[in-house]
């Protein structure tokens, strides 16, 4: 299967960065539930993530189940390369 373009990989890495910020903020909020600034940052990052995820799926196909398949992809899930194949 064809490897994605450098531009596609950059978009994926941007999504990975946002998702990592969400992972880190979630852990922090478990032990600092009173930190409203961190909660605000979490919610804002989660909103940015929704938009970026659409761009990533346009390049890579669907990345998560229980959501509509990426437009233009028939199977969406298994047609494209898996993370360790990139």
């Amino acid at each position, binding site marked *: 299967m064809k490897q994605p373009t450098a531009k596609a990989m950059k978009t994926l890495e941007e999504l*990975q960065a946002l998702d990592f910020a969400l*992972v*880190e903020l*979630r*852990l922090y909020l478990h032990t*600092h539930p009173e930190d409203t600034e961190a909660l605000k940052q979490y919610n804002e990052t989660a909103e940015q993530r929704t938009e970026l995820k659409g761009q990533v799926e346009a390049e890579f196909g*669907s*990345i998560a189940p229980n959501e509509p398949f990426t437009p233009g992809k028939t199977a969406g899930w298994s047609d494209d390369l898996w993370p360790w194949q990139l």
Partner: protein
Amino acid sequence: MFVYEKKLLYPVKASSCNPKLAKYLIEQYGGSDGELAAALRYMNQRYAIPDKVIGLLTDIAMEEFSHLEMIAAMVFKLTKDATPDQIKEAGLEAHYVNHGSGLYYENAGGVPFNASYIAGKGDPIADLFEDIAAEEKARATYQYIIDLSDDPDLNDGLKFLREREIVHGQRFREAVELLKEDYGAKKVF
């Protein structure tokens, strides 16, 4: 339930085919302080921990599974082009005879994963101190692998994982403090 997202937590790159390094990395796949042990340990402790720590244990368990996938991706990339001679030279011939080019939950010495690597005492303080120790042991293991590795691309991913063990250890220490406050207030126990 669980939902899989088809991407890694952090990008994984390998500079070259290096089955010797893959052999070291398997320690963090199926070894005593590896990612499988971590994920299973935290998932299993959730049922005997005060409610305010269940979310933390759940999210860290999920992150450990994504670390496990990163280690698998590293091993895959380091070994996918290896010749039989390179496999022999790396000391992976016993693995190859049993598992071919597939992965297996074992440690760097080839010992299969064992549930006795995981403690579950059903006591919140005992379990959280176990978790803190586990994170410190995993951090030390990552450092030892980085010491032996000469692959700068791979080390980038290993340094990320080493840092995550430090953060998890910090969050578990904070969870202990939260429970100690409740001990004082006689809210729990």
